[in-house]
């Protein structure tokens, strides 16, 4: 958006129909590969023209400039499809040049973030530690919180929700880890890939069933029907359950999973 030497936070006017309303505007540094704004705009750094600030201008006000380190307020996606750090552009040219209207629609945000969908999706932040520990205590009962044993990342992709057998099945494949040895419900010593299926209705909690699939692609019968519910909708489901062996798999959609034997 502009060139600055030191990042800072300053109050700014964003709405041309609400000149008395301001909100903090934080400057952050971006990489050299980030493309610039495609058009002129009113939200430039008035550090360069401190004697040009007007009270009714959209953009920075004459308020105090509090120094900030320049770190972005949320993790930035590193490299785009063209090898360019394209962060996306929110807002129309008119909004950037004249200010938004208070009646303009507000874009949705990416799940589990405060980042608008008009921006490129930020990288997932692993969720572990205290939250998983809390779920363990509340949901699994038998399991003790044992963070750090094994972490798996599951991409959150709503496209994996499909309609099957009268219910919506949201599948999140854990295929980066194999549990060698005796699986929970088999004595044949096969190597299993544990696939997690959350059978849920779109708008309310539902039961969780844990299936196992062997290397031949055969699904076993449901293992230990859910000891906990899927809370919320499929995209934000939080669940936990225990296997006959006492292992727990916990987490939210798109989060890092803690697996204990």
């Amino acid at each position, binding site marked *: 958006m502009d060139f600055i030497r030191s990042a800072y936070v300053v109050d700014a006017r964003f709405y041309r129909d609400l000149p008395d309303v301001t909100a903090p505007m934080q400057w952050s540094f971006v990489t050299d590969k980030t493309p610039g704004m495609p058009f002129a705009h009113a939200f*430039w750094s008035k550090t360069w023209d401190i*004697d040009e600030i007007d009270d009714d201008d959209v953009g920075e006000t004459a308020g105090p400039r509090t120094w900030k380190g320049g770190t972005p307020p949320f993790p930035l996606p590193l490299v785009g499809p063209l090898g360019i750090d394209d962060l996306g552009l929110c807002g129309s040219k008119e909004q950037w040049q004249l200010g938004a209207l208070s009646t303009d629609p507000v874009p949705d945000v990416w799940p589990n973030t405060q980042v608008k969908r008009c921006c490129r999706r930020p990288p997932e932040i692993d969720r572990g530690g205290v939250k998983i520990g809390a779920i363990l205590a509340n949901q699994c009962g038998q399991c003790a919180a044992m963070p750090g044993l094994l972490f798996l990342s599951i991409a959150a992709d709503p496209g994996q929700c499909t309609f099957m057998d009268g219910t919506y099945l949201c599948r999140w494949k854990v295929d980066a880890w194999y549990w060698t040895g005796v699986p929970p419900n088999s004595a044949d010593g096969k190597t299993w890939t544990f696939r997690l299926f959350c059978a849920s209705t779109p708008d309310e909690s539902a039961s969780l069933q844990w299936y196992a699939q062997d290397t031949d692609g055969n699904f076993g019968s449901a293992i230990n029907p859910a000891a906990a519910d899927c809370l919320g909708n499929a995209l934000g489901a939080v669940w936990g359950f225990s296997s006959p062996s006492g292992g727990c798999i916990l987490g939210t959609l798109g989060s890092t999973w803690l697996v204990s034997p």
Partner: protein
Amino acid sequence: MPTKLVLFYSQQQRGWSETWYAASAGDVRNVIQSALSDSVRSKCVSFRHPLTYLIGARATAIGTAKQSYSEQFGNAYHGLSLTVGQSTPDVASTDCVLAVDGIQTGRKRMYIRGLNDDDVKRSSDGEDVPSASLRTGLANYLNAMRIAGFGLRILVQPPNGGLSWTSCLRVIPVTGDASHADVITNDAVVNPIVKNGYVRFSRPPFNDLPGFPTTAKVIDVNPGGNNGVRISYFLREQAPVSTKYMQVTAVAYDYPAIAAVSAAATSTVSNPLIIERFSEHKTGRPFGLLRGRARSKVRAL
């Protein structure tokens, strides 16, 4: 609408800017993409050290519709001055102070940094002598900016440019809130101090008014029936400050074009290039522990 153009340069760990103005330049995006053409960009930097890069530029319309457009140039434009022997700058880098004259009035001194050490030699008389290629490069730079429509910004006081002086208004207190400061004066404000004009304050007490602008745009005159002017300034703690030794006068900015420049020491058709002095500075950050030359002053609140 007046336009301000800032060119950004870098040389290894250092960075600096050079500023130009235009009385009216149209859309600021066109200023960067058209007026500041590929040829002009090259002339801005080609006479400097090969490790000096023109990394970007920003153009800002500073009239009533304040828009800004900036662009990065990457490594496309850099110095081409041949270096004999060494390939990197030593601990000192050569700079010069260039005097740039307006066609009819006004003189601006520009600090030209990132020059090639080999382009300046000290003579047996103890005088720093620029090379012919440096003189030609500097002249080409100034003439390219002149042809592209860029010039100076000078402060005109009194604003009518004549010999009559406008009266000074004595400031009593400065009051304010989170968005502006009202500078209360003894007398009511009349022409030539007008809304959207500019005023200059003499000797602001910076201890009481940290960061107070010496020159500011007038947002309102005699606000709320009180004598004085209103400017954009955040008055700390919003408590009125009495100022004994400050006066306010009307000023105006003018944007004269610069005169054509010749690299030769004498010329009958153009002004000679005026290099006032050369200097050398250490590489690294130019002001000790301060981070560059940012105009904003950082304070703990």
